[in-house]
């Protein structure tokens, strides 16, 4: 993996408008900060190599290296990435805090892992009004306060960097695919630190087709409703084609066509719908807003799901064949569109010494996906 410094990060990511504001580069140094969804570089840093560039999921991401590291195989480009099995899930009867969106699987898993001591801290995304804010929690009950869907990009990973700085050794992280990708890079010790140990105890990845630009979304939504009164945002699973905004006693529906105008360009380069480098990935089961889709990818992911199920924190079921097929189709479609765009824009596998690629992946896989 090629690592550069913040000057290159500025040029390759911020100035190319590729930054999604995931927070991976923040809380590492005094130079990179997030403010209301935008990443700011306060001052230039002159170091030729830095963690900011190494962790960033939008530049010099080597999918083959990461895949080898986490799944012992080069990146094959299958729609859902490497996994053991796909199930459905929802929070079990032991989880009495019922106010979550969809099936509550993520909250159930994280609170369970904290309660059992598998994790010493959890990195989640809370919100202030409609602004998503990173949150580091250690109390299992606090997980539920972060349970709502946000729909806008969040600098969640800065809380992960905070957790590491504070000395937590088994931090659980809930993140979107870009965040999980950044996390995978972080976990593969790109700076080749001596005595490195993976500080992350569990990665729960979310399904994601896009995340909105916060500032654009806030400006847009404030034309429809008093932003300060918004209590909940929801996009019911297809075939519904709208975002529901709950403000006070009102519920407003906004067509997804309008909402999609606010998707940042960088999401169209994203090849990952299901957080392929997680332990467990969770999404909403199509047609069933109260149930989650669950992808189990790793041994520890499997163990924790099994245990949570045994102890009544999670109810796991079989996924209907047509749901799985459609999930594979949707994830494959996202991957294909993104790779075609990346290739067209000349951002894949750049070989010139002085230029950085957005993504590196073996050509066989690229051909297979694009074909």
């Amino acid at each position: 993996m090629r690592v550069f410094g913040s000057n290159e990060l500025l040029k390759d990511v911020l100035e190319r408008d590729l930054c999604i504001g995931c927070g991976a580069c923040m809380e590492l140094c005094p130079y990179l900060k997030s403010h209301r969804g935008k990443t700011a570089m306060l001052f230039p840093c002159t170091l030729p190599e830095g963690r900011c560039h190494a962790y960033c999921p939008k530049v010099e991401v080597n999918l083959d290296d990461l895949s080898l590291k986490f799944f012992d195989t080069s990146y094959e480009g299958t729609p859902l990435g490497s996994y053991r099995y796909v199930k459905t899930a929802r929070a079990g009867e032991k989880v009495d805090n019922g106010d979550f969106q969809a099936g509550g699987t993520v909250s159930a898993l994280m609170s369970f892992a904290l309660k059992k001591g598998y994790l010493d801290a959890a990195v989640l995304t809370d919100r202030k009004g409609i602004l998503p804010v990173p949150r580091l929690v250690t109390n299992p009950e606090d997980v539920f306060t972060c349970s709502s869907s946000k729909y806008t990009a969040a600098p969640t990973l800065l809380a992960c960097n905070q957790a590491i700085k504070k000395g937590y050794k088994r931090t659980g992280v809930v993140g979107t695919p870009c965040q999980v990708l950044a996390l995978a890079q972080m976990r593969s010790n790109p700076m080749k630190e001596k005595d490195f140990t993976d500080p992350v105890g569990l990665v729960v990845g979310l399904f994601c087709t896009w995340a909105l630009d916060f500032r654009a979304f806030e400006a847009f939504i404030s034309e429809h409703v008093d932003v300060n009164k918004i209590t909940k945002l929801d996009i019911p699973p297809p075939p519904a084609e709208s975002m529901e905004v709950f403000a006070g006693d009102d519920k407003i529906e906004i067509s997804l066509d309008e909402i999609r105008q606010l998707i940042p360009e960088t999401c169209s380069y994203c090849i990952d719908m299901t957080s392929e480098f997680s332990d467990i990935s969770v999404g909403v089961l199509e047609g069933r807003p109260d149930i989650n889709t669950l992808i189990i990818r790793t041994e520890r992911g499997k163990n924790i799901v099994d245990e949570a199920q045994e102890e009544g924190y999670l109810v796991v079921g079989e996924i209907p064949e047509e749901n799985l097929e459609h999930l594979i189709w949707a994830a494959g479609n996202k991957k294909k569109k993104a790779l075609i765009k990346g290739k067209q824009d000349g951002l894949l596998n750049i070989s010139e010494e002085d230029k950085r690629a957005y993504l590196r992946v073996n050509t066989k896989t690229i051909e297979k996906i694009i074909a």
Partner: protein
Amino acid sequence: MSYLADNNEGVQHLLLGNEAIARGALEAGVKVATGYPGTPSSEIMESLSKVAHGRNMYVEWSINEKLAMEVAAAGSFARLRSMCVMKQNGVNVGSDFLLHLALTGTREGMVIIACEDPGAHSSINEGEARMFAGMLEIPLLEPGDFQELKDMVKWAFDLSEEIRNLVMVRSVTRLSHGSGNVKFGKLPEIDTNVDAGFQCDGFILDPDKGAMISMPVNHFHGRLQEKLKKAREIFEDCLFNTYNGVEKPELLIITSSACNLYCKEAIALLGVEDRVGLLKLGTTWPLPPELIKKNLSRTDNIFIVEEVLPIMEGNIKVLAAEMAPEIGVKNFYGKNAGNLPTSGELNPDLVLDALKTILSVEYEDMPESYKKKAQAVALTGAPNRELTFCPGCPHRASFWSIHGALKLDGRKGFVCGDIGCYGLGVLPTGFSTIKALHAMGSGIGVASGFGKLRQFGMDQAVVAVCGDSTFFHAGINGLLNAVHHSSDVTFIVLDNGGTAMTGFQPHPGLTVNAMGDEVPGLDIAAICGSLGIRVEIGDPFDLKGTQETLTELIQDKKGVKVLILRKNCALSPERKNKKDYEMHIDEGICLGENCGCNRLCTRIFRCPGLVWDQERKTSRIDEAICAGCGVCVDICPAEAIKKKEAA
């Protein structure tokens, strides 16, 4: 009372040029002296303020130069000798009033002192107040040494009374801030029984008893030109115009002001006293034609030496052209011929080089080998030092927060600034945050304009900074404009408790005046608050709080928002040599050049109190320089900088 008020006629003192000017005014019996601080003029008023009560004078640091001129004019109208002091661009500020005052004329003597700054040592311009003398049609005097600073200022009052109009005296940095021997003259008796009054009930055109009104303009303009003509006649025999040299020199140098000293030195160094004559003019506008004719007749080769623009050169050439049938056509050397630069300060070397070429004289100021060695050492030996805020300066902390807030806002915002120490915000010491820097009060003025360009798609955050003294000087006008027009601007008043850059002169925000009397202080926050806009007050040393407030203000797009950042200047009497904290750096924690810091404190924050130890690869506190403000504690990402309360 100051030695400047000693009545010891004939005694010689080593005086700062500005003290000589003050003494000249005292010898003239000045009663009303006003000004606005500005380098290189400030010491004149400071000297007078010390003796004000003892000499029964009124001395005022006015809120700006226009006000200073107006207050001084009132003195003159009421039969009191008055004087008004400022730096070069101060004349611009008051020029609108001057345009009218020149027409109405004055009564008791009124003198304007313009201290100019060729080379812009302490200015962000190289303005020429000399032009105003021509434009306003008033006499201009330019003393050529330290004794003349005193003597000509004194004489300027007599001249003013003789022509019944104001007289401008011009000094420059090298005279105002140089020192020389000055022989004192007699001080008038302290007049405690002054009978001031403004007589204005006479015939309207009566210069002594009528109103001071410039209408009918035709009449008064004609009268103004008569006064100038009278001045020209007086100048023909003026003893401040001197000629030194042989009767018929090969080359005639015509010079004035500090260049007189440079010319004398160059002539002596070259040893060309028998070839060069030196005409030093003390009265440079209007030029006395007969005197000029007499001197131009000495030779055909004329070299005009003056600083910055060829103003005197142009005026002499006009006369020479008119006189050509009588005195013949002359060869001119000077600015237009390329012998001297038209910007920057002159010095003996520049004059000497020009003179060497004109006269084809060989001169080696130092052996070639020495010159080479000196150049080599200069290139490698001297560290490159740029201007920086002092250790403990509140402006460094303020700009840190402003820079941070603008970056977080992320709309490529910028700061408009003006004149004061905070102008250094254009440099790395202020994180290069100021991107537009102009005249006093222009920060908020220009910002007021930027903040109205939203309808044309301009979305950048607009911030203006202004010092407390500048707020009263001209900032308040820009603020009123911005508020009235609902301009989207964040206005930051950097209130450091005085007119700090020029030496802590009082301003209307303080409860003391130039003479040390108690006066009502005006509250900037209350003034801003009375405009119905959001006003916040903060401590610039509270980086977190300031940055949070600022970020919020910048993103609040509803009209003008004001943040007043209050902290006294590190050099103010209240803070100088008083450390709040003893600082030290835990070298074990300091991240140094590693990822995670990369020398933030010594590479970016760059307070002179922080130094980088090249060998140990950590930062250190330079205890001799550190002012103990403690701000750097809050910028260190590793919490390696520690503070403890100073004993």
